[in-house]
């Protein structure tokens, strides 16, 4: 009994806990084929969009090119909260839809394998879990943005599209969209925490929110010109990060992404803390 009285319990610091968990999640990310498959999918999307340019129709006519400028595969020229044809939708924002599915699979595997059980019986806290997943998945989605860009550039060059634009804008647009990955990853982590026991529902909800349909519906009511208030939402800001983006766009995306990431992390942690893990 003397020995047991000498026991010392040390409280691991937040940094130590998060570092350990991030180490595990990054290791898993880089050692799962899923990550590389989604990177390839992200690269393949612009190739599909741009590859249709100039294709022959069955009646012998040549189809109208979707884009004549390669950067339009990244973002629209101006914010289009409501699009009139599929072309308006076919840009880098599609990465966030596929990213949502990737996050669902990544987190779903935590539960399926019993890893969360192993994790939450240790000193790990629920907010550590939310933060770690959000950060790692945001990184993965930012990587998908990069492979999307590479896919667009290569496909654009092969098809012979125009590359000439004011170069400052695409860079800010791309960086802004990459910043938005944090907000999107946090949303998907939050959704997957809510529906953790229902893998199918997790994927469906991630897909639904990823398409931005709720925001598009609001946009249809208020119209494109009056839609700037939609920028407070993740989909709105992602649309706002267009080719005419400037430093203000970047700052708006940064603030929106971080604020939503914090909100989703707080609510996700609360849900996890108030419910059974397994």
């Amino acid at each position, binding site marked *: 009994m003397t020995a*047991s009285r000498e026991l010392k319990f040390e409280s*691991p610091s937040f940094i130590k806990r998060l570092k350990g968990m991030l180490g595990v999640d990054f*290791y898993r990310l880089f*050692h799962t084929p899923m990550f590389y498959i989604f990177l390839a999918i992200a690269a393949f999307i612009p190739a599909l969009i741009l590859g249709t340019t100039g294709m022959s129709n069955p009646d012998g006519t040549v189809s109208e090119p979707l884009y004549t400028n390669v950067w339009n595969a990244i973002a629209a020229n101006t914010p289009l909260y409501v699009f009139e044809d599929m072309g308006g939708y076919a840009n880098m924002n599609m990465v966030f839809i596929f990213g949502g599915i990737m996050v669902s699979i990544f987190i779903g595997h935590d539960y399926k394998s019993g890893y969360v059980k192993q994790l939450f*019986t*240790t000193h790990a806290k629920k907010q550590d879990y939310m933060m770690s997943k959000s950060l790692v998945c945001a990184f993965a989605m930012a990587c998908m943005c990069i492979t999307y860009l590479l896919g667009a550039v290569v496909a654009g060059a092969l098809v012979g599209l125009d590359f000439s634009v004011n170069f400052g804008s695409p860079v800010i647009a791309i960086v802004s969209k990459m910043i938005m990955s944090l907000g999107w990853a946090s949303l998907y982590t939050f959704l997957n925490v809510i529906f953790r026991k229902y893998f199918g529902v997790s994927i469906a909800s991630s897909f639904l929110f990823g398409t931005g349909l709720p925001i598009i519906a609001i946009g249809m009511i208020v119209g494109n010109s009056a839609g700037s208030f939609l920028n407070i939402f993740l989909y709105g800001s992602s649309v706002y990060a267009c080719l005419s983006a400037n430093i203000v766009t970047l700052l708006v995306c940064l603030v929106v992404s971080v604020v939503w990431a914090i909100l989703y992390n707080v609510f996700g942690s609360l849900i996890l803390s108030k419910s*059974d893990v397994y």
Partner: protein
Amino acid sequence: MNAVEIKGLTKNFGPKQAVSGLNMTVPAGAIYGFIGENGSGKSTTEKMICGLILPSGGSIKLYGKDYTDADVRARVGVLIEAPGCFPNMSVWNNMMLQASNLGIKNSETEVQKVLKMVRMEGAAGNKYKNCSLGMKQRIGIAMALLGDPVLLVLDEPLNGLDADGMRIMREVLTDITKDGKHTVIVSSHLLGELQKIATHYGIIRHGKMLCEMTAEELDANCRTYVALQTKDMNRTKALLACKYSRVEEDEAGYLRVYDAKSPEEIVTYLYENGMLINEIKTDKIGLEEYYIDLMNGGSSSAPAKQSHFPSKSKEER
């Protein structure tokens, strides 16, 4: 100090009450055998101790601290049902991931050490999904041992183990509790195996603690009986039933007499009635029989009670 102190623990799943006002005391340094039927609330209680499910009421203290405290949680090792491992990763990588989660320095050395303890060092490179059930259980124990836990909570760790695996498990558990610092809560349906290692017992039924006792108390509670064989077992049984209130035939073909004062008394009685005995011996019922008896009303054991142990470890005894 008690390693675990539970008071009035309750867990409801909708209208169903899985655990109902459970009290439990596990002294530090003990190997606590947690016994109960399927659905009695063992796993639910263990999951609450481990922080996997939230109690609906009551309190859980680990080493005097609330069970949610990160500092005490860092020293709890757990194996509930099956280890939480990624099937496509190697055993080694799964162990290393858990070591990373626990923030263990010198993780490679530590992982090697625990794998060696459960004799699994040779299988470190195997993919987890290719391991047998027994190997997975041992990996689970190794994972629970990472980070020098002071409290181990093991739910059915003996499931799927062969005879050698069970021996290894017994050795590991008795070794780590030798110093009096480590405490183990272990639930199992293999009561014979449990009896070989447990220093304390808790028997749960319908979500309530039926009784808690030390191994010595169990020993004292387990009644002795006289077992005998004759050439005419039917007549012997009829004769004995006239004198003794409880006479049963066991699986080995012996007649058991539970309320005889001594074997000599039975020998004399049967001799007087013209019956010769082939073999006679005295024995004690084991944990399994004690448990079954208790579940059936407790006729051959001490009355069911809700007791609290003095803080006594195996070392002191």
